[in-house]
């Protein structure tokens, strides 16, 4: 549509006098201030693209890092400001013509995503781990995304000192989509947010500097399976629209519980058909379960986590999970509560399978990244146990768990980037033997993260697990908690096994070295350790915060 056409549409709308036959079209209202976190991030991403176009190659890296850090910090400040002004509690409402909810869970999760994104950006920007190539410091990303792995073109790009600074705007776009995802209040916004954050992630996965073939394979798998699941989601949206005659969360919920019975004449054949509702809901839930990595939609996780550049893995494992669980929470608590007697038993099965499969398969893993991938599946199961509690405690415990878990995850993957040998990161577990003797500090930090994953008291993992299991038990899912605790016991085995390997095995002669990182990665790891310990030792303030934030606006 050309600009003049838009103009004529507007003039026509305003020219229509009151009392005319044509209904008046309200001027769309956008609450810019309340959407500012998302707008800042998306704007910064656009700015990043302009930087790629106009700023000289030498200074691009610095400009990009600066823009990304400033944008994420400013967006976080905006979130804090909104929360301080009561938008999380008393002033919670639905903004942007019903598309976006501004409420406690949304702000809490946005804050978590922004902080996790900020910490992840630090690991993206790390340039001291790889040896200097042709006089240039290099990061974890390929010199030139378009060059064929191992080709002369790649060598030339490396020699010329090319770097893929596009990762920063890509990450910002992803963060922008993730910010919208948990606050989306209609199904279309949900879908668009999903695509906005998924597409940059597919690209980021393909950009590893080392082991590029594996990285590209991971990206292709992720893209294929991701599209597959998006298709299901979209189909589910269509079916739900057919059932309810609306994509708005509130309206669908009202149609489900029967308080709205208006029939849209165009949809007279389908509206109110329960089969559409059930199948559509199952498909949408499936699309979200894919993103959180729940069984049986988890198969992509280990392959993608292993192949993607490790900073990207950390970012995905943390931020994507937060966003996807946020969307799932809102869907189940706002849209489908009237349907809970149908989906709860099914979700029970998913939760049990996810917890057990994640924990059991992790036992025989030999690669640290795959191990962490399966661990993330098991954790998805634990979080789901809190999600299906269907109580206010369920919401707040999941919020808390997500905040705790995301920093541990980024920290753990950041440590993985440090342990290196000639081929890049040494991810095979056998190489980690005796690490505690060579680099006690790094091994100790990693041990802290592993203990947090295992849910040992005085770490954030314990507080979080305790909260979700408590919520699940009080929500009437005692059996689920029993399975959860059993899986935790199984999971503890492989976490502790890594600790034993690091501290009680003889180091190998040709073992990896531990690179000394720049303050960027150190910050990422330090934040991880600090959050782990603070949320483990004194979780009450944050539990209260999550409690306050635990109410969805409807």
């Amino acid at each position, binding site marked *: 549509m050309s600009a003049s056409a838009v103009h004529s549409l507007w003039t026509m709308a305003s020219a229509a006098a009151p009392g005319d036959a044509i209904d008046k079209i309200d001027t769309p209202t956008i609450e810019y201030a309340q959407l500012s976190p998302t707008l800042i991030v998306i704007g910064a991403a656009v700015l990043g693209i302009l930087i790629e176009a106009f700023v000289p190659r030498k200074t691009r890296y610095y400009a990009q890092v600066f823009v990304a850090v400033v944008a994420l910090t400013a967006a976080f400040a905006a979130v804090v400001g909104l929360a301080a002004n009561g938008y999380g509690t008393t002033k919670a409402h639905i903004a942007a013509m019903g598309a976006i909810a501004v409420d406690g869970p949304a702000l809490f999760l946005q804050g978590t995503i922004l902080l996790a994104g900020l910490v992840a950006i630090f690991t993206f920007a790390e340039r001291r781990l790889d040896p200097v190539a042709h006089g240039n410091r290099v990061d974890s990303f390929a010199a030139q995304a378009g060059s064929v792995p191992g080709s002369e073109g790649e060598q030339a790009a490396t020699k010329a000192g090319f770097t893929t600074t596009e990762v920063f705007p890509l990450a910002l776009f992803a963060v922008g989509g993730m910010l919208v995802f948990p606050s989306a209040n209609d199904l279309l916004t949900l879908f668009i947010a999903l695509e906005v954050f998924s597409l940059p992630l597919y690209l980021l996965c393909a950009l590893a500097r080392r082991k590029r073939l594996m990285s590209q394979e991971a990206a292709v798998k992720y893209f294929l399976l991701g599209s597959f699941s998006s298709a299901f989601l979209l189909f589910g949206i269509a079916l739900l629209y057919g059932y309810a005659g609306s994509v708005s969360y509130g309206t669908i919920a009202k149609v489900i519980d029967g308080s709205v019975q208006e029939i849209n004449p165009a949809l007279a054949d389908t509206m109110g058909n329960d089969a559409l509702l059930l199948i559509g*809901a*199952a498909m949408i839930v*499936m699309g979200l379960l894919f993103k959180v990595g729940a069984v*049986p939609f988890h*198969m992509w996780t280990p392959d993608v986590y292993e192949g993607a550049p490790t900073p990207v893995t950390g970012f995905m494992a943390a931020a994507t999970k937060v966003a996807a669980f946020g969307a799932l929470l809102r869907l189940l608590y706002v849209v489908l509560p009237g349907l809970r007697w149908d989906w709860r038993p099914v979700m029970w099965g998913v939760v049990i399978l996810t917890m057990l499969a994640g924990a059991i398969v992790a*036992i025989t893993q030999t690669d640290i990244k795959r191990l962490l991938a399966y661990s993330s599946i098991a954790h998805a199961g634990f979080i789901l146990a809190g999600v299906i509690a269907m109580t206010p405690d369920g919401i707040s415990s999941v919020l808390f768990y997500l905040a705790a878990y995301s920093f541990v995850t980024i920290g753990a993957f950041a440590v993985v980037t440090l342990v290196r040998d000639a081929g890049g990161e040494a991810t095979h577990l056998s190489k980690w033997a005796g690490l505690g003797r060579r680099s006690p500090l790094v091994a100790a930090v990693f041990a802290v993260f592993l203990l947090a994953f295992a849910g040992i008291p005085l770490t954030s993992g314990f507080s979080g697990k305790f909260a979700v299991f408590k919520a699940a038990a009080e929500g009437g899912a005692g059996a689920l908690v029993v399975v959860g605790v059993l899986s935790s016991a199984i999971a503890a085995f492989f976490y502790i096994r890594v600790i034993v390997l690091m501290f009680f095995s003889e180091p190998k002669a040709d073992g990896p070295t531990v690179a000394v990182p720049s303050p960027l990665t150190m910050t990422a790891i330090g934040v991880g350790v600090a959050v782990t310990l603070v949320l483990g030792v004194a979780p009450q303030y944050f539990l209260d915060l999550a409690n306050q934030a635990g109410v969805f606006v409807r």
Partner: protein
Amino acid sequence: MENLIALLVAAPLLGAAVLLCGGRRLDRVGHWLGTLLAAASFVVGAVLFADMLGRGAEERTLSQHLFSWIPVEGFQADVAFQLDQLSMTFVLLITGVGTLIHIYSIGYMEHDERRRRFFGYLNLFLAAMLILVLADNYLLLYVGWEGVGLASYLLIGFWQHKPSAATAAKKAFLVNRVGDMGLSIAIMLMFTTFGTFAFGPVLEATGETSEGKLTAIGLMLLLAACGKSAQVPLQSWLGDAMEGPTPVSALIHAATMVTAGVYLIVRSGAIFNGAPDAQLVVTVVGAVTLLFGAIVGCAKDDIKKALAGSTMSQIGYMILAAGLGPIGYVFAIMHLVTHGFFKAGLFLGAGSVMHGMNDEVDMRKYGGLRKYMPVTFVTFGLGYLAIIGFPGLSGFFSKDKIIEAAFAKGGAEGWILGSVALLGAAITAFYMTRVMIMTFFGEERWRHRATASPDQPSAEPAAETHGEHDEPHPHESPRSMTIPMIVLAFGSVFAGGFFSIGDRFMHWLEPVTRHDHGHSPLSAATVTGATMVVLIIGVALAYVQYGRRPVPVTAPRGSLLTRAARRDLLQDDFNHVVLVRGGEHLTRSLVYVDHTLVDGVVNGTAASVGGLSGRLRKMQNGYARSYAVSMFGGVAVLIAATLLMRAV
């Protein structure tokens, strides 16, 4: 006035803190400081006592609430003190005898380089013991109970360089744990039964509680008393505890701590009154122990161990009396106090003898010492006359009353208990006469020791330090040691008479213990007569055996009973066979079960989970197409299950 109660505890507690944390710079004044604070506590006690006498019999109880210790909903534990006539009696005994023994220790421990620490421990003991008797609830009592256990452990093992002392301390500690377990279980039972463990509410509520519960609580309290007061079957530690310095034996293992069990039972009188079965067990334990201790006392050649056997036996009397219920509570406490005087005096006398004899403890190497240490002889002699119940002295009054009360119990029980108590009196007379004769009369066996048996190996560490052929030079102890002995001898002579004339002590304690006279089948005169007869028989037998014939320096082999008694009636052998061996067998079988069954299950589970993991892992084959199929299958199942749920 009630604000002074905390001061009683605070003074020795401060002393312990200062002396134990103060370091070497306090070495020169430490013993004075410790003694001064003990004396200060006694003075405070005396002031409170005078104040208490000034009030009517029913208004004498004072209480002081210090702070809320564990304030939880439904669980209130306070640090609060209660001073009634019973506590007052103990306060005076503990601080009085305690002060005397502090003074005595100044001389006795003069050459010990760790004297400051010793006084720190003594002060710690006083503080803990005062908490024990002043507590107004069972939980705080438990604090004191454990505190005296700790002090006792530290002091028994004070000469820790001697392996025997270290072992004895450990043994005392371990055996006491068994008893302490009883006390903690009793407190838990009280909490579940009454919802509180303050003395007042618990003891008032006993009337509405079932007898079964009271019996359970009573038996657990008895177990606690057995541990602390060295009663059968937890008596084995007391003999070995004599490895500690003699003032410790006098204060802790004769006069005060070991009587804590009696205090506990008398204090919990209301519980026992409602549980006749528990009372019966108490009397049986008391009766058995009084014979057990007396028999052991007859065979020991070590003067302190003979006295330890005697202590056990005398506490047996008290426990027996306490088990008789309201007939006996007053006499249990009265005997406890008089025993505190004369047994502390006897121990101090024994310490004085050892002091003059190069720390020799074997009575067979004493003899004829009355010439060399006249003060010790006279004070020890008065203690001796008191303990055997010589008419007019303390023991006569208190023990006689217990025997009378035992008969007054009535029925076959009364006859049996009374006869046992009488028999005990005879044996007491025998073994105490034996100690007296072997120590102060007869040949001076220590003179011939070097020449008579030069080849005889000497096991005593003292002999090693002084040289194998160094003959001891018995001499009187310094003033600081003899004065406490003289004071205690006064107590031994006059306390019983003072208490009994006009039933003073009975009226004093009556508001707490509610005395009941009972109906004795025998008249008081008959009982007294019988006691006199058995007393004379016991003394005569001892005189015939030890006074008329020379005492061999090497112990003869003796009869089977003698040999068993020398080994403390095989208590350690029994414990070894039943508990140690039994425990070993139990642990071995548990280890076997652990290795085979538990490990089998655990390893089996681990192996099967690992196997499952390996198989599941194969599903992750790396092909995007199979992943997509699994997703498709997954969503199909999801939809089918959702529809099924609706259909159901």
